[in-house]
């Protein structure tokens, strides 16, 4: 039975987790012995079973498993067809798409940078142009993978006191949503050309950066989020509360940051159709460039995006409960399974508090038996 994860740094982070009793399973811990003999102390089989169970299969690692498509090209007529497909994809589609992509970037740079640098930042027309250009550039991106995206539900509107939350599979989630609405995002700053784009372009939309490795960062970011949501001219804010890319079959726990801003939370559910391509970006296994290359050499990226009804904090509901409620809505809509783990466990070890809990239960039972002797 999986247990709720904790981010491993300051005690402030502990406030992030939902009620542990909902997830902890008492039958998974060391059996509480009725009597105390040598046998009860030597029999460590429950603990070993749990460890072996975790080695063989665990609900956290499952969230980040890329699912390579099964090879189907194993006979006389399918194999040549597949080869033909490869030729078409790499030899015809890819160069065409790359051409479109490059052309799009050129047009974008030629129009964006003059607007960005020549007009003062107070100019409303400049912001409008920047938004339109970013939306256009994202459409170019989507075209470069032959994206077939079905949007369901009302288009996001430009007004304050709302924040959008979505499940996260890859950085292309952002591009797909940005195509129709110029959101401001909160993202981890990346190195390389992606970082350059983040600084040069996304900042103009009002984006906010965070740094996973800095614990003090949280307060600063929380303040910036609050300020952004209040400004009437700011672009709507898009947040991925999972904090990391997950493989589009599961959702990990939502961080409560987006849910304690005192405004409406508009859930967005994104589901990719795996038949065409596995859109999960396994950032530990491939760079973003490789990921884009894979997308550009596939047939299409097909996905559904659902804009769900805006939600408000219910009276008596904590932000964490609110986050779980919204995660539930998104998971149900996109057909994803929920797991009770914190996405940050991809980068940090679980808090020792969880191990201590197990130790305490066993120690208490032994001490109790000792007293009764």
């Amino acid at each position, binding site marked *: 039975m*999986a*247990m709720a*994860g904790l981010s491993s740094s300051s005690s402030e982070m502990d406030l992030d987790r939902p009620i542990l009793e909902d997830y902890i399973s008492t039958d998974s811990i*060391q059996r509480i012995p009725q009597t*105390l*003999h*040598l*046998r*009860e*102390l*030597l*029999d*460590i*089989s429950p*603990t*070993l*079973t*749990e*460890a*072996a*169970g*975790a*080695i*063989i*299969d*665990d*609900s*956290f*690692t499952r969230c980040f*498993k*890329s699912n*390579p498509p*099964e*090879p189907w090209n194993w006979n006389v007529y399918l194999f040549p067809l597949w080869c033909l497909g490869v030729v078409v994809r790499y030899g015809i589609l890819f160069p065409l798409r790359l051409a479109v992509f490059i052309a799009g970037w050129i047009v974008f740079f030629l129009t964006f940078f003059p607007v960005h640098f020549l007009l003062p930042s107070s100019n409303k027309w400049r912001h409008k142009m920047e938004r339109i250009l970013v939306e256009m550039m994202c459409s170019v991106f989507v075209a470069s993978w032959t994206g077939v995206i079905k949007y369901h539900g009302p288009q996001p509107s430009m007004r304050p006191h709302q924040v959008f939350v979505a499940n996260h599979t890859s950085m292309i989630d952002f591009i797909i949503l940005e195509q129709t609405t110029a959101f401001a995002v909160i993202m981890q700053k990346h190195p390389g050309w992606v970082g350059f784009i983040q600084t040069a372009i996304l900042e103009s939309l009002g984006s906010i950066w965070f740094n996973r490795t800095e614990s003090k960062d949280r307060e600063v970011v929380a303040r910036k989020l609050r300020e952004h949501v209040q400004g009437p001219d700011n672009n709507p804010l898009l947040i991925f509360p999972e904090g990391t890319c997950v493989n589009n079959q599961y959702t990990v726990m939502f961080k409560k940051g987006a849910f304690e801003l005192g405004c409406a939370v508009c859930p967005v559910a994104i589901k990719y159709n795996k038949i065409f391509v596995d859109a999960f970006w396994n950032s*530990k*296994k491939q760079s973003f460039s490789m990921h884009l290359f894979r997308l550009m050499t596939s047939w299409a990226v097909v996905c559904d995006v659902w804009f769900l009804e805006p939600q408000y904090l219910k009276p008596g509901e904590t932000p964490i409960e609110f986050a779980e409620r919204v995660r539930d809505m998104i998971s149900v809509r996109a057909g994803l399974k929920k797991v009770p*783990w914190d996405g940050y*466990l*991809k980068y940090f*070890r*679980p808090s*020792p508090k*969880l*191990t*201590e809990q*197990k*130790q*305490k239960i*066993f*120690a*208490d039972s*032994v*001490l109790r038996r*000792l007293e009764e*002797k």
Partner: protein
Amino acid sequence: MGNASSTLTQYDIEEVQEHCNYLFSQQEIVALYERFCQLDRNAKGFISADEFLSIPEFSLNPLSQRLLKMVDGLNFKDFVAFLSAFSAKASLQHKIELIFKVYDIDGKGQVTFKDLLEVLRDLTGSFMSEEQREHVLVWVLEEAGYTRNSSILLDDFVKVLSSPGLKMEVEVPVD
């Protein structure tokens, strides 16, 4: 990662199956191989301690450090052999042997008071004092006819744990 099943030939599967005394079916071995490849991030041929610790459920197990010494750096064949103790088909003797090896982590062939104390410390952490732990151990040892200075052998483990038996099984999920 690639297609795991295509890099594992029928010969490989049979070799691994033989090495673990047929305690796993061929499908289970294929499933375990996929898992092994998933955990072994850069296809080194073994799983490092760090990669085991990236499994949150394993990391928070009180005996994780002790187990790491047993599984760190194992190749796939030995990985399967280690896990075969958890198969439903494994004998009670096999399971007890694994428990013995966890206690006797340095492979002396006997379990000393120090080993018992170490495991108990892992299981109880800071919630029992060292004195309390020693007290409990001495008490149960003497009750069973041993002393603090006794060296406990595998046969002793078998004697103590055989009745009413052990339940130590994990199912390998097969697609």
